[in-house]
């Protein structure tokens, strides 16, 4: 290979390596276990954490308990052991939360387990209502006994009316409980769960509803009996009766129910009228001078089911009015925006399909199909939440399944967002800066190296070969005139050799510098410093050889190596003799005779002249 190609090749290699290193400069981990932790056939267990958790066993145990224990809660409700029922219910809710967490942890929200979780949540919600209604229903029983003993038909009527509302609620809960029972049971059977307890709870709830109905019928009958038995005290003095008319009898979200209550009696005007919805006071106001009370009830947070309404004034109750609220379709929008570093704004609006905003409804926010947050819509139906997220790509989704509103479940269109934290942005800038700095330094180094190399390969200047002799008292004389060749006779032993003259200026031309070198040689010979004298000659020839044949690193060559290089060259003959004599004096320690010294000078001259000549 052409030696001239080596430097550019090495430069190319260096640039390639530099680029490669530069690309990985900010993340220099070329090999880390996770880069090699999976293959087509397996994952590396050594790079994973081992768990001893038997997931399916745990899950099945919890699912089994959730289905089975429902029965015991309902049994306790039916037995009127509300304290135990409450405890059992709380335990059930805790278990349900555990199950929900596992479902979230294992990303099972969209699976049968997720479905089970939804059924369970709905189940627990119904049991909660059943527990509350039954508890209140039982309290009414005690009040009923008291009012009967007190022979207070007015109070007894209030109990009866409230009981009527509760009965309707219990029946509604029963209907819904029954409604989801087949699907929930089937799901349980799919996982080979024991559904006996759950099925028992379904029949228990039905019995409970029948009992409530039966109790309520009896209560009504007793109230009527008491009313007939004591007509004089049954009615208050001011109002004889209250009527209630509701229009329409079926409504949906956003509709307005007009409630017309009319008081009649001796002093019907400007009386307080209460309107009850499902036994709970919903509105209150004063009748006009003619005893009329009009109330517009806007359907918003009212469950989609049958409800009982009645109006009352100081123990005088209107007949019960049934109203059915039907669900309507809903629409949910989603907008995701990065507000700041690690701060993602998630917002949207919940409306009906008709465009009515839904205020106060719960909205669940899902991140990569995992529910991460729950928020409420504002007065304008707008919901907003902020999520602190690491840089990465996420899929957002929101859903509204708030059963306290007469709305069908709504879900937004998924939105995918690449979250780029400013840390990430900084990282890119830093990477570019570091890489640029690296390239600049690399280029500077390359330029310096190149210039250095060029300098080394530049015009070769002969230097003073005797410069290594730093003798005390040495004086450098600029532009020294070549001294006349002196007699080569060595001085007597013991005499100190004079310091050699400076030759830098004289070394500007080869001929002139050669004369200077020879003059110095002779002076050293006179001083009997033969070894340094011959070395000066040798170094002069070495530099000449290097210049002539462009030998790089010629200083690392031994005399023999240099001699080998002159093989077949014009200077080979005299240089061979010179080197032989040089080694004898320099390494052999032999003092040359005057003849030998002159021979050496002659061979030196012949070699030098051959090197100065144009031929190779």
């Amino acid at each position: 290979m052409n030696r001239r190609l080596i430097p550019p090749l090495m430069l190319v290699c260096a640039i390639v390596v530099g680029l490669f290193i530069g690309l990985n400069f900010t993340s220099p981990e070329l090999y880390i276990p996770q880069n090699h932790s999976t293959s087509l056939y397996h994952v590396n267990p050594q790079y994973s954490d081992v768990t001893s958790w038997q997931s399916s066993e745990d899950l099945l145990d919890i699912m089994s308990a959730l289905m089975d224990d429902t029965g015991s809660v309902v049994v306790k409700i039916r037995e009127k052991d509300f304290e135990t029922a409450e405890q059992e219910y709380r335990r059930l809710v805790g278990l349900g939360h555990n199950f929900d967490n596992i479902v979230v942890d294992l990303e099972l929200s969209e699976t049968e387990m997720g479905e089970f979780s939804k059924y369970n949540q709905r189940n627990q919600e119904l049991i909660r209502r059943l527990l509350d209604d039954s508890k209140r229903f039982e309290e009414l029983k005690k009040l009923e006994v008291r009012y009967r003993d007190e022979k207070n038909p007015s109070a007894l009527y209030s109990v009866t009316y409230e009981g009527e509302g509760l009965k309707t609620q219990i029946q509604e809960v029963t209907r819904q409980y029954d409604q989801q029972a087949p699907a929930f049971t089937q799901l349980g059977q799919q996982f080979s769960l024991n559904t006996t307890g759950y099925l028992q709870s379904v029949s228990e709830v039905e019995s409970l509803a029948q009992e409530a109905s039966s109790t309520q019928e009896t209560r009504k009958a007793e109230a009527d009996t008491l009313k007939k038995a004591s007509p004089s005290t049954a009615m208050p003095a001011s109002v004889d009766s209250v009527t209630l008319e509701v229009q329409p009898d079926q409504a949906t979200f956003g509709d307005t129910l007009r409630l017309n209550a009319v008081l009649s009696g001796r002093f019907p005007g400007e009386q307080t009228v209460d309107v009850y919805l499902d036994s709970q006071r919903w509105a209150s106001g004063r009748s006009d001078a003619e005893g009329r009370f009009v109330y517009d009830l806007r359907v918003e947070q009212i469950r989609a089911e049958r409800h009982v309404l009645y109006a009352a004034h100081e123990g005088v109750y209107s007949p019960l009015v049934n109203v059915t609220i039907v669900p309507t379709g809903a629409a949910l929008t989603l907008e995701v925006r990065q507000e700041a570093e690690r701060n993602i704004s998630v917002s949207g609006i919940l409306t009906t399909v008709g465009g009515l905003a839904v205020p106060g409804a719960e909205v669940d926010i899902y991140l990569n199909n995992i529910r991460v947050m729950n928020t409420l819509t504002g007065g304008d139906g707008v919901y907003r939440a902020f999520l602190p997220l690491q840089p990465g790509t996420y899929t957002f989704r929101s859903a509204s399944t708030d059963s306290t509103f007469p709305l069908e479940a709504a879900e937004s269109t998924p939105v995918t967002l690449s979250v780029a934290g400013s840390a990430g942005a900084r990282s890119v800038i830093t990477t570019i800066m570091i890489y640029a700095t690296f390239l600049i330094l690399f280029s500077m180094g390359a330029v310096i190296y190149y210039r250095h190399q060029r300098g080394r390969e530049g015009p070769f200047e002969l230097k003073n070969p005797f410069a290594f002799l730093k003798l005390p008292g040495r004086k450098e004389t600029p532009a020294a005139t070549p001294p006349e060749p002196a007699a080569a006779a060595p001085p007597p032993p013991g005499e100190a050799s004079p310091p050699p003259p400076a030759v830098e200026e004289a070394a500007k031309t080869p001929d002139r510098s050669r004369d200077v070198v020879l003059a110095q040689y002779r002076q050293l010979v006179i001083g009997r410093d033969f070894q340094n004298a011959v070395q000066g000659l040798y170094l002069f020839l070495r530099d000449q050889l290097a210049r002539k044949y462009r030998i790089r690193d010629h200083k690392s060559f031994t005399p023999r190596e240099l001699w080998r290089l002159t093989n077949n060259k014009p200077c080979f003959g005299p240089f061979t003799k010179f080197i032989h004599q040089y080694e004898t004096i320099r390494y052999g320690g032999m003092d040359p005779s005057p003849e030998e010294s002159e021979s050496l000078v002659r061979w030196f001259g012949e070699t030098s002249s051959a090197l100065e000549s144009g031929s190779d």
Partner: protein
Amino acid sequence: MVPIRKIVLFAIVLACLSCIPLYLHLTTSTAEYSRLNQGWNGTSLYYGDLQERGAVMITDLPQILDYPGSRLLLLAPDRTFTPEDLGTLRSYLAAGSTLVLADETGAGNQVLAGIGAGARLQPGNLSSLDFYLWERQSGRYQPSSVIASVTRDDLLTRGVEVILLNQPAAVEGGEVLAETSLMSWMDENGDRRISQGETLGTYSVFTRERVGAGTVYVLSDPSIFTNGMVQLSGPENNTLFLERLADAPVLLADQSHSRTGDVGVLVPLLATARSTRVAEILMVCMISILVAYLFYRRIL
């Protein structure tokens, strides 16, 4: 002169040191399941154990006919079996031998069909909620690290309660010896979740079947033999099961059609070179010549 030589000497020492990993690299393999692969996905540990037990490495399939009544481990087959090969296996089984086939790619179905077995491998990403690995970095669970329960007592499953699998397939047919829990599914889209169209159910992972006078076991995951799995610590590792598989009076390990026999090109050459006296002498001579040349060139 002296500093230059020191640099050269240093370079030579460095080059020699560099040769150590090069030698290790050339004498080992990174191929999946290779018995010379010392990485996590190799089977060097298990095969080391087999060799200590005196298992016979089968490099030419007809060799198995020399060992009637023995047990042949055929792990991760990936080469086509010729009709002659299948005939050999049938003859082997007819002699009352046992074949243990471990495969997850479905390549073993050719063998099963060829020997007249009813079991078939059902390749796929079998996953389960009964898993044993959590990904360390993301914290996500790895449902493909399936825990299967032993359902039937057998010579190969005696005392074993569970088998830990690593991205297994499933087996259809045969007597089920081990299966996954009900909460398992084929993760078709690889999202580690039970997506739409992926149904939960129990899958067989280890079966037994009588074929003629012989017995065929099918395991749907050869990953259990890899170093990563063998080194797995904990009370529920596969140690006992692996021991049961290797516990036979005469044990054969196929290298002719198995990925465990993947050793690359250089490894056999080096192995031959190391085992041949002439090659050894040649190598010594070459090194001597090189050293002499370095001295001659005054590099050393």
